[in-house]
């Protein structure tokens, strides 16, 4: 597939994933939480396709999640972009950890995302029961996202090999 077409396809695909998260995935509740499909997809995207495609996925994903959410829109978009830059940087600079980077990334990204939203709730004067949120929401979400990244990352790598640009392997 043409490199440009693949790049532009990122926008509708990630937007569609956002809608899937707010409809189908919101009903799929395991441990009483739904997986953060868009966050996982944006993280996987940057690991497989690097920048700027990864950042594009993060901007579109963040904007879709922000549009469908009642939370702080700018903060959500910024968290998505920040996480994408961070994961991209780690992926480029830690090649010796390539095997575990997807799993470490998703744990870090989920903790950053949830942690900053809890911090925002607290700083804006909302009543928040933090231990309850950590036990009922953050820990299950980390586990669920970790499980989801195993599927999305390997599926993404497979799709990228089939439809991505030809790669040159050193003999």
């Amino acid at each position, binding site marked *: 597939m043409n490199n*440009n077409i693949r790049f*532009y396809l990122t926008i509708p695909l990630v937007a569609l994933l*956002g809608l899937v998260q707010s409809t189908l995935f919101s009903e799929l509740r395991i441990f009483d939480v739904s997986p953060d499909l868009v966050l996982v997809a944006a993280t996987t995207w940057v690991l497989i396709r690097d920048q700027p495609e990864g950042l594009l996925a993060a901007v579109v994903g963040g*904007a879709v999640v922000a*549009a469908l959410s*009642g939370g702080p829109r700018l903060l959500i*978009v910024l968290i998505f972009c920040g996480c994408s830059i961070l994961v991209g940087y780690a992926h480029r600079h830690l090649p010796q950890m390539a095997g575990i980077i997807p799993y470490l990334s998703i744990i870090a990204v989920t903790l950053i995302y949830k942690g900053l939203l809890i911090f925002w*709730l607290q700083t804006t004067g909302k*009543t928040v029961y933090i231990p309850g949120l950590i036990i009922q929401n953050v820990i299950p*979400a980390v586990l669920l996202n970790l499980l989801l990244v195993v599927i999305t990352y390997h599926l993404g790598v497979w799709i990228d090999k089939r439809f991505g640009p030809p790669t040159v392997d050193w003999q």
Partner: protein
Amino acid sequence: MKGSRVHVLVLVIVLCLVLAWLILDSLTPSNPIKNAVSQVASPIQYALRWLGTPFRALAQGVENINKLGEENETLRKENSELRNQIILLQEAQLENEILRKELSFKSSVPSYQLLSAEVIGRDPSEFFKYLIIDRGKDDGVRVGLPVITADGLVGRISEVGPVSSKVMLVTDSSSSVSTLVQRSRATGMTQGYPGQGLIMRYIPQSASVEVGDIVLTSGLGGGFPMRLVVGQVAEVTEQDVAMFKDARVIPAVNFTSLESVMVMLSFQEQSVEPLAEPTPE
């Protein structure tokens, strides 16, 4: 190289569009980007929700199959109790109406025009409790209208698009509803409490609140009509040194399985103006 430069340019354009949307959103309640996106997204959300219906039904069926026998027995008992209660309540209502007429009181239960709506999406973030419904400005929906189900209060409209709207649930951390305890008439403020569900605060220390008490909207503040069921008290927290006591409330509505709601179209929100500064004589 050329392709890469174009990609960066596209990324910058997308970033600028997102920024423009965020700025417009903070300046005007109905920004054109949001309206356009909502018009494109709503049918897709509707279709995705429809696609998920068989899976949802299957999951619910499997979940319910074990409980059916037990539930059936409980419902039978409850049904006969409720029949008796209905008869008594009808009598009381009739008597109430006659007495109100005699005293020339305004009806305490005004009839509201209800608009049914389907839930087509939910907040993708777990910390914010919002629903997206398939009714918008074109159907007469406006910001602030209460949203209910047969079980009780769901929340209020927080954003309106042309064909869809966002509902802030009572369990959201920004939600605050004036409520009272049905049995003792103790008033308080029920707020969304992430991690705990709902919490009724500012209940006077002297007021009586017990586990199992029903919590209703009080109508104070004019944001919601009176006597909508909010939930049931699950736990009461009181400290000798505190001025007020708190109660944890279990919502009457099961928000996770909510598929359709009703918008109270004819409700007129009464905003309470702050008191004027006293002028020195």
